[in-house]
């Protein structure tokens, strides 16, 4: 999970620091989370975890932990 959060922070988020997010963070509370972040997450899931993830899968996620469950 720690490694996953680091990847989210490095590859997707630009304005949110790594200290601001943990597994229980609500995605809707990440101010910069938008459709671009969704696309980047699909890319991250594909390239780093070899998991095909759809936009609909991501829409159903409430927390960072839910995103983690998609790729594990």
């Amino acid at each position, binding site marked *: 999970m720690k490694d996953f959060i680091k990847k989210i922070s490095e590859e997707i988020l*630009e*304005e949110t620091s790594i200290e601001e997010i943990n597994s229980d963070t609500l995605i809707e509370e990440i101010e910069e989370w*938008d*459709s*671009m972040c*969704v*696309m*980047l997450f*699909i*890319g991250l899931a*594909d*390239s780093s975890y070899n998991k*095909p*993830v*759809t*936009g*609909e899968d*991501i829409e159903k996620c409430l927390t960072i932990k839910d995103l983690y469950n998609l790729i594990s």
Partner: protein
Amino acid sequence: MSFIKFENVKISGIACKVPKQKFLLEESNLFKSSKDVKKFSKITGIKEKRHANNSTTTLDLCLDSANQLISELDWDKTEIDLIVFVTQTPDYPVPNNAIIFQDRLGVKKDSMCFDVPLGCSGYVYGLSIVFSLMEKGFMKKALLAVGDTLSKQANPKDKSTYPLFGDAGSVTALEYDYKSSDSEFYLWSDGSGYDKIIVESGGYRNPINSESIIDKVDLNGNIRNKVNTYMNGSAVASFTMTEVPDQIKKFFDLSNKSNDDYDYFIMHQANKFLNENIRKKIGFEEKQTLYSMENFGNTSSTTIPLTICSNQMDKSSNKLLICGFGVGLSIGIASIEIDSNFKKIMIDEFKK
């Protein structure tokens, strides 16, 4: 299966024309701040694009391209036997652009002219149609016009489409030549994804009525109406990152080739993040992969000819792997060669 090999057809030249008017993303009011623009440009690779004015259509951009290319190649217009026009933004719903284009260009009447209404995969499809019609040698010279003005179809208040789409027109000249090298094509379609990129009204399933042109806000705050382009960005992203590289690998298997067989890899210019994802999966080097989206955005079916015309290539003769993908959903992949006599023309009248 639609894997096809062709011989006897040569690509003699390509001309592209972009409209003069620049649209700079940093000047757009779609973004909250300059930071927001920078992030968008960093991910998509798009900084600016061109917009055709109200009196300029796809047909006009392609006509100017054709006239310059014909003159550069020193072709006689009476020798042209075939015109295929790939566009989703024709002058009229009826008749086809290709036939109007024939008359305005001054091509003889006993020529075959028709349109192909495909989008991002359209250049590869158009080439495959022209190759198959010419291969036997009955028709000696052909023009493939490919262009779109998608800036006119996207809603200026829709951040999911408007900042991406630019306008451009192109013409590719092809001729029968029994000494030309072989070309290979692989074409793929998935109609279950028809609604991932769609203009909902304007056909006969949903004819235009007063309700079609009313702007509505979607869940992401983007505003569009039913005669505008809608794009489900995340679905298109998933398709691009999984299906496109998989089908390129299948093309390699079918043609018994690999990335080592090519000098350059030229993809449809969707966005930099997605294109780089494909490049890495296929194993092409950065310097072999050409781009044009930074200055022109996503110009629909024109991205491949525009990328060829707006980039320098090291050698005089080049083997190219081209791949168009998008609306349909649809993918076209081809192996083509351009020789040392190949002419390319970039018409850009922008002045600072």
